[in-house]
């Protein structure tokens, strides 16, 4: 019996080849084991269980046709082949579409059904698939996915690699790295599932499940790979549908189902690897030699029994002798001025993936010309286009800030309608416009006309609100330095004052008691535990909590008590924001119980994206209103602060193309007269970009492409869009409109490079 085992990489994220060899050697001491590798840097070639090493040239220089012919001869001559390399297995499926009796890897049809992330073969198994989206959707929608899943998402490569992306900037960086490495933009984003990782590994031959075991990870490497685990039987509830699945997809070879078990005991299937796992010999140690069962299934030759040495296994690092016929190569020279020697993927797997991409191995035979755009352009509300139509942009000096008047009115109207809809006889919901979001008088006026309160963080903002028409009794005063420029404190009674610290609360209590300050409601801003923020009273220690309880008891009885919390849902995620909301209800309930002071107003700041505020498909707002009386039966008013959700879509920035720079027959870079000075939030979220066809005047949203938009500033990071698809008709002088620029893009924009 001669068995070829490929994939002998044995670093900290190893391939299973060495483990397979150890297991087969246990079961078939007389078998001739041939280790197959594509780099002499893979240390597994020196493992003692291999009788021979068949060292090929790296994948990037390998003649695939010659190699395929050689493998066919090996198989025809009776050799078995067990592959540990996912990409090699995919290539085999192309070379041997109907399989080969001695090739112990899955056929093409089976592979397609375990392709991630959908893993269509999972039907019938007691597992769920974590939510995912392809990165072919627009950046706008990708950002929405990240928000929806609280930025607990993984950007995954098509075959290997996953990167956690905690912010938009990180997402863009990782997407660029993964796309470039794997030669494709077809990545996917998947929601994280918290829990404990476990796997089922199995062997099957022509649709018959031969053996399988469950392994729970008990120790992990830095990459969360298995370092130790325990092995047990697969229970019948899983085994029966697994057997059925293997039969249905006609699986041959090893496989590993990687799963997470969450707190509710639900299993989530992350991926199905078309090969044995690297820990496979751990199973053999427990007496379950899965590779041997595969060989036995394929040949009919019974293996020797593998002794039960333990129920658990772990790994150690060990030094082994180097085979003299494969002496170690020198280390490559570090690149000039760089630190470290690049040794990643020594066998050229990344380049192999690119070659397979070009051969359409992953596209089920569909040839790709590599030019057609697969990306969706973002959807843009019709009101944006209508508003742009009413503006004479070509007559404007660019970069220009555009006020989308009808859009603004529409969003304020919807916000007003929402609070009306949510209000009940017992609980009134009121909007407050956060002036810092965008202090443009047109927006403040819209807020006033729409029945909003004005939320301010300084006395200068109070002054502005009063100038536009607000009265002090319609103003909420907030923030850490609200008494700056005290000399302009207006006469009259504020609607509400929220103190940012216990020290400030003490001072305000003193001034209210002395009559120096008047406010209908007096309260505090809270910073709950587990929140990274510099604002509010941090109640994460019992000492501060006790001081807070004491201070609240001293609030004058004539001021009604109120509590404020603020967290940008666009940063922390929508789900997390609602958790924070419920968390604040619990804290407030405790404060009420401990102080005897009843909370009458709850002011909740949102930092909402417009879509998140309007969509609310889960009915979270209604649920929240319904929940409040359970915790705080005396709350009479909720103040909602949708400033960002209203201001952001209300303005845009028009820029003009100054220069087009070509490379490889396409526009690689375009210089525009705008910059990050007019678009400072560029790093935090994608902006939808509209391009105007100068002939027809039509506006078209731009999808993702290969053009970089460089700002006018002499600043390295002044890149206002990294990858957009400029129309072929684009020329110098054309106008691009960056939408969604009406919130902090506007209020935090700065003058730079204008002399």
């Amino acid at each position, binding site marked *: 019996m001669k068995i070829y085992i490929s994939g002998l990489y044995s670093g900290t994220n190893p391939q299973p080849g060495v483990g397979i060899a150890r297991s087969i050697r246990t079961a078939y001491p007389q078998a001739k084991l041939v280790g197959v590798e594509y780099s002499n840097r893979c240390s597994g070639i020196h493992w003692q269980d291999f009788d021979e090493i068949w060292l090929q040239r790296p994948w990037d220089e390998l003649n695939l046709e010659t190699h395929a012919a050689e493998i066919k001869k090996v198989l025809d001559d009776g050799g078995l082949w067990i592959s540990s390399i996912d990409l090699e297995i995919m290539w085999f499926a192309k070379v041997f579409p109907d399989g080969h009796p001695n090739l112990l890897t899955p056929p093409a049809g089976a592979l397609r059904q375990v392709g991630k992330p959908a893993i269509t073969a999972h039907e019938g198994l007691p597992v769920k698939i974590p939510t995912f989206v392809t990165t072919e959707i627009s950046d706008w929608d990708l950002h929405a996915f990240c928000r929806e899943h609280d930025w607990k998402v993984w950007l995954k490569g098509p075959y290997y690699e996953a990167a956690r992306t905690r912010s938009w900037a990180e997402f863009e960086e990782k997407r660029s790295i993964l796309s470039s490495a794997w030669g494709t933009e077809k990545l996917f984003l998947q929601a994280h599932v918290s829990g404990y990782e476990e796997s089922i590994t199995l062997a099957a031959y022509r649709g018959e499940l031969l053996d399988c075991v469950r392994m729970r990870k008990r120790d992990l490497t830095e990459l969360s790979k298995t370092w130790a685990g325990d092995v047990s039987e697969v229970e019948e509830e899983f085994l029966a549908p697994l057997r059925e699945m293997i039969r249905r997809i006609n699986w041959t070879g090893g496989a590993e189902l990687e799963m997470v078990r969450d707190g509710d005991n639900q299993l989530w299937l992350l991926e199905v690897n078309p090969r044995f796992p690297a820990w496979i010999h751990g199973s053999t140690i427990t007496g379950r030699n899965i590779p041997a069962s595969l060989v036995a299934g394929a040949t009919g030759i019974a293996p020797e029994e593998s002794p039960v040495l333990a129920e658990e296994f772990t790994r150690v690092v060990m030094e082994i002798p180097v085979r003299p016929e494969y002496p170690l190569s020198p280390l490559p020279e570090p690149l000039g001025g760089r630190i470290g020697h690049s040794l990643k993927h020594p066998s050229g797997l990344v380049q192999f993936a690119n070659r397979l991409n070009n051969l359409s191995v992953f596209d089920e035979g569909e040839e790709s010309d590599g030019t057609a755009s697969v990306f969706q352009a973002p959807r843009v509300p019709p009101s944006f286009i209508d508003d742009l139509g009413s503006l004479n942009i070509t007559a404007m000096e660019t970069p220009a800030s555009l006020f989308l008047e009808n859009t603004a009115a529409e969003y304020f109207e919807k916000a007003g309608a929402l609070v009306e809809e949510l209000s009940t006889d017992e609980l009134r919901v009121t909007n407050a416009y956060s002036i810092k979001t965008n202090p443009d008088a047109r927006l403040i006026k819209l807020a006033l006309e729409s029945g909003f309160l004005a939320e301010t963080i300084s006395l200068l903002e109070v002054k502005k609100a009063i100038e536009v028409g607000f009265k002090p009794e319609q103003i909420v005063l907030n923030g850490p330095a609200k008494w700056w420029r005290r000399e302009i404190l207006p006469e009259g009674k504020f609607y509400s004052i929220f103190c940012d610290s216990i020290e400030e609360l003490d001072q305000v209590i003193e001034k209210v008691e002395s009559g120096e300050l008047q406010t209908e409601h007096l309260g505090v801003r809270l910073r*709950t*535990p587990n*929140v990274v923020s510099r604002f509010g009273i941090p109640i994460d220690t*019992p*000492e501060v909590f006790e001081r807070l*309880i004491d201070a609240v008891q001293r609030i004058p009885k004539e001021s009604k008590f109120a509590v404020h919390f603020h967290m940008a849902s666009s940063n922390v995620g929508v789900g997390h924001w609602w958790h924070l909301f419920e968390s604040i209800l619990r804290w407030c309930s405790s404060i009420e119980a*401990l102080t005897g002071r009843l909370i009458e107003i709850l002011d909740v700041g949102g930092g909402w994206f417009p879509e998140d505020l309007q969509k609310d498909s889960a009915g979270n707002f209604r649920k929240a209103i319904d929940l409040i009386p359970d915790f705080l039966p005396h709350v009479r008013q909720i103040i909602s602060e949708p400033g960002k959700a209203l201001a952001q879509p209300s303005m845009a920035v028009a820029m003009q193309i100054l220069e087009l720079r070509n490379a490889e027959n396409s526009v690689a870079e375009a210089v525009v007269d705008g910059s990050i000075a007019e678009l400072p939030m560029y790093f935090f979220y994608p902006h939808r970009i509209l391009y105007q066809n100068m002939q027809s005047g039509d506006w078209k949203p731009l999808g993702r492409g290969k053009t970089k938009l460089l700002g006018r500033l002499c600043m390295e990071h002044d890149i206002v869009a990294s990858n957009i698809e400029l129309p072929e008709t684009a020329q110098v002088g054309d106008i691009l409109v960056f939408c969604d620029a009406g919130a902090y893009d506007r209020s935090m924009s700065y003058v730079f490079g204008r002399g």
Partner: protein
Amino acid sequence: MYLEGVSKTLTETSVNGAAQAVEAVEKKAVYEHWKNWHASQISHHGKICCEIAREWITATDFSELNGDCVLTGPRWLRQKFNWGASTFPIYWCEAVRRKTLDCGALAALAHEIFTARGLKSYRVQLIQKFSSVATSQWTNSWGSCGEPLAWTKGDLIYHEGNAIDIGDRKIKVWDASAGWWVDSKPANGYGAVLAIRLSGLNLSAGESFHWGEQTIKACEWKEIC
């Protein structure tokens, strides 16, 4: 099985000689010593000071849970408190301000947390096997001037945790000091659980639960290994 082993050795004492007899008597004595121990409690002054502390613990837990499943163990307790010696009685207002709490105090806090989450939580007492090296270290580091600790004996220790009812009479066992769910699979080595007892005012004698493959009767010591 540990406890069976004890009684078996005792009956064989006269046959097999003095050394075995001493070992058996020691083990029996250890067990007898812990057999009537009660799960640790945190006391309440009956005043606002302790009520503030208790509200702070449960409200903090909800914040720390981060929207995760309520069956997620309150790992944050061990980030807040080091594991070490506590003195009893300990009051709520003292406990939350301590830098160090022992397994009993941590389990008592975890019990309060699980209960506030709406879960059925019971107290768990454990006998675990470690090594004489480990117990010697604890004896020295817990500042008892080399005097044997009441919760250690040879290579055995008395420990406390929590049991959470997850439905269908099944429980999970949380070790608040370690910050992990205790494996129900029997083992007989370093760290192994040898015996377990469930207790709590919300339990009736005779009620039984499944912990993995084990069946555990409330308020009775159960040998695991």
